[in-house]
């Protein structure tokens, strides 16, 4: 069953050099539980495609259907509500709210989705990423790897239908990166989430079920 579907997705932007097509007529269909890696040269348009698929940006033309909802038909707030319930994110730089503790950061998406058991669920997920002892720490008191683990916990805590990750190991050393990737795939297999992952790392890509090669805005 398809959980994420793109039809003729195109994104054009105006730049000093004129009209640029950064995502060009991309169609894809991802089934529930699949793990997909998007790879390609820098500037190929991977992040842009990810943003379109997750509804963070709207396409110039084409259509995205996420968890049964037509993203292009929703307004910004509608897409936000959908994200709150069905989508998780992990980014290259860890994007934690600096003014909230690790626990509060993980609780955030639950609270936004209106869940009552936020604290317990967040605590439990933090335990699963091995940070049960660090719940009260603020992001700046955590190492890069620990911050990314908090981000992982936050992404999985809502049990999202789709998890988007944009170079989740890009800012980490090889060793830590590998640990994070392992954790990511463990969590993914436990919670049966669909994973869409942008990466430069061949080894990471190899662990995914499907590999999409992107070049100058097009899928090959």
């Amino acid at each position, binding site marked *: 069953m398809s959980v994420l579907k793109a039809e003729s997705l195109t994104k054009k932007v105006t730049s000093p050099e004129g009209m640029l097509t950064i995502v060009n007529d991309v169609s894809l269909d991802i089934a529930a539980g699949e793990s997909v890696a998007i790879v390609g040269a820098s500037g190929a348009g991977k992040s842009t495609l990810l943003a379109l698929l997750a509804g*963070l940006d709207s396409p110039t033309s084409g259509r995205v259907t996420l968890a049964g909802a037509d993203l292009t038909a929703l307004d*910004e707030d509608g897409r936000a509500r959908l*994200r709150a319930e069905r989508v998780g994110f992990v980014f290259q730089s860890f994007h934690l709210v600096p003014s909230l503790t690790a626990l509060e950061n993980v609780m955030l*998406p639950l609270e936004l989705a*209106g869940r009552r058991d936020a604290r317990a669920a967040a605590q439990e997920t933090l335990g699963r990423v091995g940070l049960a002892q660090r719940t009260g720490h603020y992001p700046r008191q955590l190492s890069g790897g620990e911050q990314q683990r908090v981000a992982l916990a936050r992404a999985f805590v809502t049990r999202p239908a789709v998890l988007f990750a944009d170079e989740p190991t890009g800012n980490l050393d090889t060793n830590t990166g590998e640990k994070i990737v392992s954790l990511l795939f463990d969590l993914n297999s436990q919670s049966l989430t669909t994973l869409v992952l942008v990466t430069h790392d061949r080894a990471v890509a190899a662990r995914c079920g499907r590999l999409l090669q992107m070049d100058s805005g097009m899928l090959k």
Partner: protein
Amino acid sequence: MKALALAMRMLMREWKSGELGVLVLAITVAVSALTGVGFLVDRIGIAVDNQAGEVLAADVVLESGQVMDDKAVDEAKRRGLRTARKTGLFSVVFNGDASQLSSLRAVSAEYPLRGQVKLSDQPFGNPEFATGIPARGEVWPESRLAAALGANVGTQLNIGASTFRVSRILISRPDQGATFLELAPSLVMNEEDLPATDLIQPGSRLRRAQLFAGERSEIADFKKWLETNKKPNEEIEDVEDSAPQIKSAIDRSARFLRIASLVAVLLCAIAVAMAARRYVQRHLDSVALLKTLGATRGFVLTVSLSQLVVIGLSAAILGSLIGFVTQSWLVQLLSGWLRGDLPPPGLAPLGVGFLTAIAVLGGCALPPLLQLSRTPALRVLRRDVGPPPPMVILAFGPAVLAIAFLIWWVMRDVKVFAAFTVGLAAFVLVVAVAGWLLVKLTTRLRGGVGVSWRYGIANLGRRRTESIVQLSAFALGIMMLLVLTVVRNDLLGDWRRSLPADTPNFFFINIPSDESREFATFLEERGAEEVRVRPMVRARMTHINGKAVEDIQFETQRGRGFANRDQNITWSGELNRDNEITAGKWFSAEDAGKPLVSVSTEYFEELKLKLGDTLTFDVAGETQTAAVSSVRKVKWDSFQPNFFLIFAPGLLDGTQGTYMTAVHMDARNPKTIGDLVRRFPSVSVFNVDDLLAQVRSVIDKALAAVQSVFLFTLMAGLVVLIAAVQASRDERRYESAMLRTLGARRGTVLKGLLSEFAMLGVLSGTLAATGASIAGMYIARKVLQIPYEFDPWVWFYGLVGGGLLVCVAGWLATRSVVNQPPLLTLRGA
């Protein structure tokens, strides 16, 4: 609810991390400045009002030419006000064969309710304060009356059917006025002695007055009551009528204070706007993240709005407390200078401070906050996307509205309001254009300078909007500080100098024309410099544009007074320096002998005249018609001889007039004046030392207030600087870390930063000095009507001081950037 809880949690945390410092500081300083200024202005305003009361010997005076009943007095007593009575009438006073027409003042025991009577034991002698009023059977004749009659303490005087003993000589009384209309010297007596004199006959011309004094608010209420309940023949007397000098000084001091508080308000608005801007910049990432995680725009808005409300409220409460405490402390500090206690403050300034804080927050902080909620979620992937640019009207409209509202609220004067708003807008525009040019220019400069300069200059060019915003904030901030320091000092000095030590304190009226030369010589021989006499004659208006004044309804009591009372008039081809033509043209050489008259603005406005209107007067028994050819704004508090009406030279040459002059003489030399009164018995002498002292005291109070306002405003100015520097600090921090990672030495990075700030500082200093000079000129000439001399130091302070201040502030704020290990910065610590 969820949003609120989250908002508060984030707020608490941000507060602990020092993130909110500048915003809280800006609002706190804004509110404390505004309430502090409000309290001071309020208290000093009350003190100045009381000063006005001294000119009337009461807070309110009700006058009538007929017998008055006790209705008003009973009402006043019911309201807990103090009351007194006085009756004025003219009668000839005899000392044996010598006689002199005198203005008798029969007063009740409570007189005076405000101010003090001064007495001496010889004419023109050293004054002492009186306690009470003359005992029955005793009188206090004024110096020149005593001198004219050859009377002294102990002399028996005959008034009407009674005989009185001179117990003291009257030196001055608070309500003696300064319009020089009453030429007869006065004599104070006990009102219980009046019936026995048999002077009160049917048909005798008496002026009766009831005096009232009390708390400010009570008096205001009572005055309203009087206005509706007084009889047609009763009039409420005004300070304006009896002593325009005091009125003039009070008005000027009020305007001075208003401008000082306005500068405080404007600076605070800039500080808050800059701090809010930084708050928004710091929260773009969090908002994008919240949205990515599924927060709607409404949720984000609730979060930031509730944060703003909490920050605003707590800063406002803290600010009012600080404002209150500081002003009490300032009043303590100034108590010597203010001569006497200030009344306790009312609570109104608290409300006003809060209101202003809300206006400033709503206008300057709300729009960027609304904008913040429009940050797209996409920012989590692409750091360069921010909120879409707002419509200009939404971004600046509220701020412009709020500032315009505040200017109006403070100034309450259409012309000044328009000048300020337009001037401010023009200044901002000029600064923005200059900023834009600078950015343009620096892009060109880039190739020709060393690496650190290139880095600094490149920064300016790249952060174009930010640079322009910063430049405007610096320029406005420095300009306000310049206005407050240099220009303020100049203005205060100029104002004080407008009443130099040799300001005329003696006015001589009624000098016979054939004795005028001799009179001048007499004074000059006794030390007076360059005595200039001018003609003066009494006139009463009979017609306006051919219509008899009795048939004209005047709207104001003052207008009725102008139309129905005698006026002192003069004629002259020379315009006094303290007179300014506001409409029409002053007499030219060809106008000599033409039927033209120049009127003062008060006269012009109260009688609703137009240029070219014809006024007909009874001048010493002859009818004289003249057309209004010009309007003069008169600075009554200059203490130079001034007139409501001046006729064209030559026109009245044939009139049997007298002369008048004003000179400065040491009042403690009673002999000269005594000799003079005996030598020229028909001349009326007026000593205005008391009035001068009162005006000087009004000035001193205003100066004290302005000085203290300055302290508050200085704080606001510094906050503006801090906020402006802080606004771009984060980006700088990141860049300098990058540069250092790339191998730039600390010195290079530091020089780069400094060169950027130096450029900003010098440019904003130049613009600020220009703005401050223009503002100073305008304020001096148009608002305060005092001469203003351009002060080249403004440029020095603006350029050097401004440049240095910006550099130091910039260095302090970014110092940590340069000193921090790059890794820490890049990791976002």
